[in-house]
């Protein structure tokens, strides 16, 4: 039996996102010119939540986009992606401050693909990165600007983020692989 350890519950998740929202506003001196772009699929609901939190704090709505990176993955050859979403960003990102949002950063390859995808859509003033979980093991020189929780993991472990919008609950679990028989 694989063992599963819950490392974040709904309450902790809300707190982490609220902190990130504050940090984004602080770093960018307000919400002006900001665009939040969630990486499909789990990054997108998180981006929407951050937008709502920022609106509560600042009273200004921040546009939210969704980014599908299937066409940009460097592991496309070995991981045929069948569940493909559509990129939708409601504003022109040129000269905007774009905050990419994803649930977990791991090797950094997804973020690399997302940055390339963004560049094909326009020329942002800057790109920042917000993640709920940083589980380490980076393979590229990429560092998140905003982190909900640093979570040391082993490579063979699996981090599963569940979100209310997609799975009916908010939680983060670490699953350890099967014990040897």
């Amino acid at each position: 039996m694989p063992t599963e350890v819950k490392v974040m519950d709904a309450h902790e998740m809300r707190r982490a996102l609220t902190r990130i929202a504050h940090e984004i506003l602080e770093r960018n001196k307000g919400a002006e010119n900001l665009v939040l772009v969630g990486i499909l699929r789990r990054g997108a609901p998180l981006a929407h939540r951050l937008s709502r939190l920022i609106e509560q704090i600042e009273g200004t709505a921040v546009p939210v986009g969704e980014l599908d990176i299937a066409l940009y993955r460097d592991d496309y050859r070995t991981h045929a992606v069948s569940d493909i979403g559509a990129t939708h960003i409601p504003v022109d990102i040129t000269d905007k401050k774009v905050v990419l949002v994803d649930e977990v950063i791991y090797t950094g390859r997804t973020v690399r693909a997302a940055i390339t995808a963004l560049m094909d859509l326009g020329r942002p003033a800057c790109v920042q990165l917000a993640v709920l979980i940083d589980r380490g093991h980076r393979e590229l020189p990429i560092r998140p600007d905003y982190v909900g929780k640093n979570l040391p993991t082993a490579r063979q472990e699996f981090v599963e983020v569940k979100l209310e919008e997609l799975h009916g609950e908010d939680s983060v679990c670490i699953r350890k692989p099967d014990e040897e028989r």
Partner: protein
Amino acid sequence: MLTDLISLRETEPTDIRRLLDTAQSFKEVLERPVKKVPTLRGKQVVTLFYEASTRTRVSFENAAKIMSADTTSVAAASSSVQKGESLLDTVRNLRAMRIDCLVMRHPQSGAAHLVAQALDIPVVNAGDGMHEHPTQALLDMLTIRQHKGRLEGLTVAIVGDITHSRVARSNLWGLSKMGAKVRFVAPATLLPRDVHRLPVEVYTDLRKGMEGADVVMALRLQQERMERGLLPSLREYSQRWGVNTKALEVTKPDCIVMHPGPMNRGVEISDDVADSGRSVILEQVTNGVAIRMAVLYHLLGGEAAG
């Protein structure tokens, strides 16, 4: 997992649905100012066309180029076909040049099947004789789905030269697998033998065949049919089986009209219908690029690629 795309008759419904969904997502890329994604960088896609078809070839090549693949087009006129080289020898030579995917159009039914059996790379049938034209049917289905929100339960009337139409065959299999009801409407001389044993309703009367249809698809009528004595005249054909405003009176009010192109205006479709709000013919063309992107994406992705 899809390894080739030869016919929709032999394609699983789940794969058809996946291709449609993927194409729907990829449509966004076509609206960008810079239409380029890096997905197929370094891949060699060859289009081998033994029949002239600028539209289909350009559509495939655009799809490949948008995804950063390198494309080479081999036209029958400039290839060794003229020297009497066999089809299999031709494609084996192309394969030896380390190409990654072959898109082919051929006047003989079964040509793509023959080639797919001989090659270890994905082969896409861009139309083989009177057999199938799977990407055309997929783009038709995508267009219908965009307008109707679904395929299931729709009634699609395909009107015209059924016997010689690969578009009709591919649409029949694709649409019926997705739960649509397909009708063939044609003069008796343009209906193939034993057509009733296909999952289709058959009509020789245009009005009856169009009654209550959600979608009407007019097929191109080739001049050659007259020469072969299958029809008395273009005039009689257009009067009896041409899709015009009057014929559309009996369809559902929101019925859309499609045509795989190129159109013979005034023969299988009237001018006013082709240019009316019901016509989705140009959307079909746009969707063609998205569908072909999806096909290349799924065939060249994953471990199945050679």
